[in-house]
């Protein structure tokens, strides 16, 4: 049945794209067949990879190199050849701290504040994201009415742009917003959410979970559906309790998907920027100013656009992320072919 529905969908998509696409593929066929005869089948994967790699190289790899060279230069000029070489001075400036535990002792305190805030944010965001995605996926996997509809409901916010997500919630959370109207109506006082560092962080976490949970829920749902039903039937025969079934069957078999969710949520968490920036503006003070916002402000919004320092910070961030991901990949590799 699964294959059948896939085919239907495939046909519908294909007819949507229509004949021009087919025409393109047909036209490309003779030259590529000739290429295959000339190069041999062994080199064909590179032909398939070529266009993507070309774009990749041009718009990701080259900029990454430029970025690296920026980090070794100073001044405010845009073009590299006009910028004086300063060696590792920018890095030295970033890393100049009396003690790394307290950002206030660092020369570039905001860089470290950004790192600390981001760390706190991901700890909460990733754990609650996984928790709620799991609960939602378990519920959506039950035999409930209108299941397709409910799955879509939780996915809806995933489609919204970060700016829209933030505006929607900001509009709710303002001093005279609907949430405060609700609090007043049940006899509580208004809360100025964006004045309190704790509340600001709470809403930053909440809103980003709200916006992205649907995506992770679907990944977990896919994993849940891949668990063979006979395992559950056998457990029910044995009279195993529901809790035990969950801990002994569901969770272990879902683990690969859980890992994907954790890795992706971590990566996205480190990159957090626009949603929170529009929502809290990074405040109060610097309480929700994250590392990407620091880089953006340093290189872009300040009057003296300090590309050198911003690039150094992004290189440092990149190195940290790389180590993080490699560690995770090492953990996943046994489970999965990546």
């Amino acid at each position, binding site marked *: 049945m*699964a294959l059948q529905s896939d085919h239907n969908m495939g046909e519908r998509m294909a007819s949507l794209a229509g004949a021009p696409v087919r025409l393109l593929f047909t036209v*490309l066929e003779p030259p590529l067949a000739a290429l295959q005869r000339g190069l041999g089948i062994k080199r064909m*994967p590179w032909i*398939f990879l070529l266009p993507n790699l070309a*774009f990749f190289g041009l718009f990701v790899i080259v*900029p990454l190199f430029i970025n690296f060279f920026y980090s070794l230069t100073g001044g405010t000029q845009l073009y590299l050849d006009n910028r004086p070489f300063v060696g590792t001075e920018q890095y030295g400036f970033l890393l100049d701290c009396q003690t790394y535990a307290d950002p206030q002792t660092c020369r570039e305190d905001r860089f470290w504040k950004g790192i600390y805030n981001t760390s706190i944010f991901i700890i909460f965001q990733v754990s609650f994201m996984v928790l709620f995605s799991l609960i939602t996926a378990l519920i959506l996997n039950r035999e409930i009415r209108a299941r397709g509809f409910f799955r879509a409901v939780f996915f809806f916010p995933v489609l919204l742009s970060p700016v829209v997500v933030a505006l929607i919630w900001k509009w709710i959370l303002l001093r005279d917003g609907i949430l405060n109207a609700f609090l007043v109506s049940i006899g509580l006082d208004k809360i100025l959410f964006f004045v309190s560092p704790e509340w600001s962080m709470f809403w930053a976490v909440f809103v980003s979970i*709200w916006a992205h949970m649907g995506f992770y829920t679907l990944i977990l749902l896919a994993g849940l559906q891949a668990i063979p039903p006979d395992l559950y039937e056998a457990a029910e025969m044995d009279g195993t309790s529901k809790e035990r079934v969950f801990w002994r069957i569901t969770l272990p078999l879902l683990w690969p998907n859980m890992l994907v969710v954790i890795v992706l949520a971590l990566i996205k968490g480190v990159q957090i920027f626009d949603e929170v920036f529009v929502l809290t503006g990074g405040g109060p003070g610097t309480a929700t100013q994250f590392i990407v916002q620091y880089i953006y402000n340093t290189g872009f919004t300040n009057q003296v656009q300090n590309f050198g320092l911003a690039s150094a910070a992004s290189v440092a961030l990149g190195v940290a992320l790389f180590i993080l991901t490699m560690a995770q990949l090492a953990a996943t590799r046994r489970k999965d072919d990546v």
Partner: protein
Amino acid sequence: MSDAAATPTRTLRGLLNARRGRNGRTHWTDVFTYLYLAFGIFLMFGPVIWLTMSSFKTSSALLEFPPTFLPLGQIEVQVEGYDKPLPLFEATLEDGTVKQLAQVRRIGIISQMVDPANPGEKYKVPINQRTEVREFRMAWDNYRDPLERFDFTRYLYNSVVVTVVATLVTLLINSMAAYGLAIYEFRGRGAIMMFVIGTLMIPITIILVPVYLVVTSMGMINSLWAVILPGAATPTGVFLLRQYMLTIPKDLIEAARMDRASEWAIYWKVVLPLAMPAIAVLAIFSIMWRWNDFLWPLIVLNRSEVYTLQVGLNAFQGELDVQWHYILAMTVVTLIPVTLVFAFLQKFITTGIASSGMK
């Protein structure tokens, strides 16, 4: 995928009895499930509905606390002897009677009012002794003003071109790369996969300036290509499609090779149709990314004829004022296509991602 809910064969009785509790009794988890789902609908759609309702309020109504759910506007009445229609108030007079009066003008904390039924009679009412009389009214001006100021159809056209062309390019080159990485065993495959995953982590925000330099040196500033091309080779897309293609049985490809099909033919006639669910998912994502893209177009497009909708709709945001009534209305405008895509493609989204596995 054994998704019973999706099959049309389900009977109504089956629907009503659909719960997992043993022996048909209601388990506490069933109650919890429906409470959770009801709360889920409220939480996911409520904010958007509230935003939409608010977008129809006048700028002064937006400032009210507590806010009303429906957009309301003050009633204005035509009173004999006055050129302009006058706003209607409910005023409490000194003797305690309550009367509907129209305000002529306000001086300091005293409002000069007139009885619409009897224009000769005038009153002086302290302004805290009167409340506006209002009716349900949609403030269409929130939409009309900004839309009239800009070449809306032009921006829409640009956005559609960017979204469509970029999505097609993305699908083509990503699926080719995914095919290369999924079907063949070759030296360097591991390194390239590593590369793909590594770049998954780089937010464009932090390499904005270098990418700008590349785009400038290619002479693409102020052309839609500057928006279309840089994001085309998405690592997410390659990753997603490749993982899905790994599940395609190798026998099918071997059989096609036996029939002397070229590698290109195998790619587009055998593998692509089978990978359609994953491609649909990537298509949806690509459409969303491109449609919602703001920061990058803002920097590379500075001529109004190439603005995309997101840039154009934000152009009313000035230095010194936050005009919530316009912001809300324009946010709703950008939401409409997203919601339509959602409504029509929700089946693809859920079944597509679920079956593409992302394992």
